[in-house]
């Protein structure tokens, strides 16, 4: 049994380990280890296309995670006190957002927004003052952030809701019995208790957005995110530079994951 488990862990970690190992390999090919070198990292970080893609990815991940945490938490808080059709509709929306394959979300967002923009652009042009160039809506950073935010919002609502469900209702009731305003109760009781979950939701959302390929592939327009860049370079052939980028990407997600895990655990322990 123990042997078996060891084998599965090796299966899970050897591929990642091999990538990391070969990212420090001085030679070009997988079949020959030629001594330690960090030159591929230097090469990756010196490549303007990589840095551009990285910047786009970070911007998209940060903005959409922030928006999703904010709106998701607001919705989770409101849904706590709602029953009836509104509740059912939201439950269904969250379910659909999570269950529909990412690729279908990507496609739907692409053709949905392109169709919407085709309707809006002539209107914008008509409304705009004579002579000035009217803005044209098109696929790009905005549509990518909006698409990620939609999906991540569902994730944040699920996480924060789980935390709210585990919260002792007596505390908020006590607070309002003691004449705290609703906002006072929120700021001094609810927020401190759900904050670790919100932050964990933010970090998970960030990793999700940062690693997402399939939705971005459809809705990013002419923008290139890091996963899109990596995907198209893999198509052109395996290089040690990709190993270096891959190792860095895995490293960043690992750090964020550990942070999220610690936060969720701390949040669980405190009230007990």
């Amino acid at each position, binding site marked *: 049994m123990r042997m078996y488990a060891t084998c599965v862990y090796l299966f899970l970690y050897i591929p990642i380990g091999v990538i990391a190992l070969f990212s420090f390999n001085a030679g070009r090919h997988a079949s020959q280890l030629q001594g330690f070198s960090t030159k591929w990292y230097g090469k990756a970080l010196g490549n303007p296309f990589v840095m551009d893609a990285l910047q786009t990815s970070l911007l998209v991940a940060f903005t959409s995670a922030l928006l999703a945490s904010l709106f998701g938490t607001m919705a989770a808080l409101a849904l706590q006190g709602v029953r009836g059709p509104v509740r059912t509709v939201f439950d269904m929306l969250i379910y659909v957002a999570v269950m529909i394959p990412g690729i*279908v979300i990507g496609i739907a967002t692409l053709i949905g927004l392109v169709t919407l923009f085709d309707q809006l652009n002539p209107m914008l042009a008509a409304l705009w003052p004579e002579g000035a160039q009217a803005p044209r809506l098109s696929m790009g950073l905005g549509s990518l952030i909006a698409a990620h935010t939609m999906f991540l919002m569902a994730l944040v609502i699920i996480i924060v809701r789980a935390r709210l469900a585990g919260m002792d209702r007596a505390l908020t009731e006590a607070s309002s019995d003691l004449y705290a305003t609703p906002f006072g109760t929120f700021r001094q009781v609810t927020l401190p208790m759900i904050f670790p979950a919100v932050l964990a939701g933010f970090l998970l959302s960030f990793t999700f957005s940062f690693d997402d390929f399939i939705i971005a592939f459809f809705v990013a327009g002419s923008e290139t995110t890091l996963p899109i860049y990596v995907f198209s370079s893999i198509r052109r052939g395996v290089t040690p530079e990709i190993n270096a980028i891959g190792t860095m990407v895995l490293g960043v997600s690992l750090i964020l994951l550990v942070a999220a895990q610690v936060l969720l655990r701390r949040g669980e322990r405190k009230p007990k």
Partner: protein
Amino acid sequence: MTRRTRTWLLLMPAGTWFLVMLLLPLTVVLVFSFGERAPAGGVVPAFTFEQYANLPARWTAFKNTLTLAPVGTLAALLIAYPLAYFLAVKVDPKWKTILLVLVIVPFWTSILIRSYAWIFLLGGRGLPALLDWIGIEGVRLINTPFAVLVGIIYGYLPLMVFPIFVSLDRLDKRLLEAASDLGATRWNTFRQITLPLSIPGIATGCMLVFILLMGEFLIPALLGGGKVFFVGNALVDLFLQSRNWAYGSAVAVTLVIVMLITVTIYMRLINRLGASREDVSIM
């Protein structure tokens, strides 16, 4: 501000977002799937089932998805179950959390990079070169259904282990002791107690993996090299290369419907299985 207004204000942004970025796009897909292809690449509004009638043209993609998704799910289950059992029942509680986290962590890291790792390992200069060296020559692994299967198992194993672990961890260990006290063999204890009680975990794990596999694009694209083609790959081709939105929409709608039907049948089966098992265990 009344309670009602507050609730509405709090729900507004999320609601609007879901409306514009989820419901509107999905509706457009549904409407387009009944439309006709415009010469320029868009869609001419119409109400025709022509696109759906054309679906057999992409039969291979559906066939591949509907074989490799269940096979991959089953393979992941067979590998995941013993590990989940080990973690839930055999491992020292001190190590339980850390070992579990080690299983889940890969799932939350980039699937792109993890699939890439297998291109590296299964490619000509990886495992085949190693096999060559020990005397087994001419093995080609990359761009085969086998490579796609390995990628699938590798990618989704964590998602399978976790729910099974949870259901086994909740299992009252005294039941196992009672069974062995009453003279049940280890196999019988497993068959009559452990396995039936872990069915909810198995069901959740299989469903999660199966749903994600139905929409898979990256693993077949990277490890199947265009030879092992999933519906996801057909969709990318239809929307980004041939720009046939009407037909692509019909394929997407069909994918979601097939997914819903399979999941419903599967849940029915599991429920029936769960119920009949319960009868047995009561006797």
